[in-house]
């Protein structure tokens, strides 16, 4: 059976600037796939591109882009709008500005169900109240009649989450859905998503830079750097045996109980994400990489470090610090 979401070599450009230069990933039914990376690496643009929601001037290309077996590369706006919000839903990153200030929370929630399922007002209100309860909002009835400005950032974020779940989507693309939330609420949301996965086989593409969240809920992780997916592996394997120097650097930046010794400084990656000029060839990480060598200036092979583990690097699979140095 084909994957729920299958993306091969996704490219997004704005004018002459490449925001995404090659993102390949798959999300299976019931799977959580985490996309991690620094700010500005193209995670959010990837998410928007998959939903067909790029801002004006954004151009999307891909070798393959299919949802539930259907090629959605050339799907028109009308057909895409039937999928969006119904079978594939999205939670965007900016909870403060992503709700319509002139409309009640209830109206914005119910319209999704009414549009896609032709639900009656009463049915939609029931469903909205139920979901608000499930994302941990007390007094849902009161909240439905309120306007976004009367809600805190955390509440708005949870309204956004409830909104995405209104139609029981098959695929949920969530861009930093829990960043605005307390850890307790965050745990509650993650638990809810896990429940929905178990119940309906929801596939999740979760964009985050919180490796703690990744370790807890991801089945698979893709690491993105400067518009490219540089490494992709099952979660346990990625944490145990990261291949790409960037992934290794990323992992040393986070304290792991039992692994990091007290008093020892955490790692960091020197430099910042570079601007990639058009026509750039080779590894985009080479200027920050301690192991860079001549071959990094040419096309980089996609190497298999395991049956389900790929990395975009010239170093041999299973390399160690000593061997590379």
């Amino acid at each position, binding site marked *: 059976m084909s994957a729920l979401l299958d993306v091969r070599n996704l490219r997004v450009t704005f004018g002459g600037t490449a925001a995404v230069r090659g993102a390949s990933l798959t999300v299976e039914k019931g799977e959580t796939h985490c996309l991690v990376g620094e700010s500005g690496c193209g995670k959010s643009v990837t998410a928007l591109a998959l939903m067909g929601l790029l801002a004006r001037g954004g151009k999307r290309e891909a070798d393959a882009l299919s949802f539930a077996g259907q090629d959605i590369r050339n799907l028109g706006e009308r057909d895409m709008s039937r999928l969006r919000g*119904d079978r594939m839903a999205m939670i965007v990153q900016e909870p403060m500005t992503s709700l319509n200030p002139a409309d009640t929370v209830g109206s914005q929630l119910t319209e999704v169900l009414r549009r896609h399922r032709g639900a009656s007002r009463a049915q939609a209100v029931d469903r909205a109240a139920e979901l608000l309860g499930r994302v941990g909002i007390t007094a849902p009835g009161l909240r439905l009649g309120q306007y976004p400005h009367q809600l805190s950032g955390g509440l708005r974020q949870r309204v956004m989450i409830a909104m995405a779940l209104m139609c029981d989507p098959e695929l949920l693309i969530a861009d930093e859905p829990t960043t605005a939330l307390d850890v307790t609420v965050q745990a509650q949301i993650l638990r809810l998503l896990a429940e929905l996965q178990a119940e309906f086989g929801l596939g999740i593409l979760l964009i985050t830079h919180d490796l703690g969240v990744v370790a807890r809920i991801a089945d698979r992780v893709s690491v993105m750097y400067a518009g490219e997916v540089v490494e992709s592996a099952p979660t346990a394997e990625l944490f145990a045996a990261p291949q790409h120097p960037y992934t290794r650097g990323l992992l040393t930046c986070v304290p792991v109980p039992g692994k990091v010794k007290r008093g020892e400084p955490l790692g960091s990656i020197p430099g910042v994400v570079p601007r990639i000029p058009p026509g750039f060839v080779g590894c985009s990480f080479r200027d920050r990489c301690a192991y860079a060598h001549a071959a990094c200036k040419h096309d980089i092979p996609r190497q298999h470090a395991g049956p389900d583990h790929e990395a975009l690097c010239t170093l041999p699979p299973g390399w160690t610090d000593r061997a590379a140095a």
Partner: protein
Amino acid sequence: MLKFLLRRLIVAILVALTVLTLSFALTRLSGDLAISIAGPNATQQDVEIIRQAYGLNRPLTTQYFDWLVRAVQGDFGESYFFRDRVANLIGSRLPITMTLGLVGLLIALVVALPLGIIAAVRENSWVDRTVMMVALIGQAMPSFWLGLILMVWLGLNLDLLPISGTGGPEYYVMPGIVLSFSAIPSLMRLTRSGMIEALSSDYIRTARAKGLSRLSILVKHAFRNAAIPVVAIAAVQLGFMLGGSIVIESVFAMHGVGYLAWESIGKNDFPVVQAVVLVLALIYIALTLLADLLNAVLDPRLRTA
């Protein structure tokens, strides 16, 4: 919300008082009223009698407060020319002007809103450029000239509409069109810029992410937000249009307040001119207050604050 309204109300009353004072001061500044009322052939004695009769020999402050108290009660004295109470004159003319203003505003909204929305949706396309060009031309065109053109074309050549006077509703169409031209450009630009801003906002992206229909995204989400300032400006525009109707009422010989003002200015009929200016100014103030109110009603952030 209540505090907001109360503050606006107080400001409106203060502005109204200022207008009343200015309108009193203006007539006193334009020379000795007794002399201008008496006319060029009057003797010194006549002038003195008139001064006595109209109470113009009393101290200025007494005159001012006396006038103010009466003006507030709607008593603007008697017209020198029409031999009628000024209040009656204005009362009989005001409905014509108000109707004309409302017709003009209605036409302006019906034209400006859809064009503004289309221009925003097709931003920077030839449609957008054409619409903006038409707006520019509309703004640059003198209303009396447009009025005459329409009279010749719709009135005489095509014989569709009456060219002057006030009878049935058809008499208001042509002047309404002319009047609307003064409001269309600004309403359209505001609609366009509001829509462009709304359409690029995060909540529109959310609406698209929800898979809503194009119509629902445009109307329920984008226009609902873009309309807030437009409605307020429309109310203020109506005020402008009522003032601007002086020219149009003259061109189309409609006996409204504007026409009355035009006649009275020519005949040095001070009480009437003063009262017309005052009434139009007060209507303008009331409309501005209404605009604030509408803003508060439409914008939940103001309403519930």
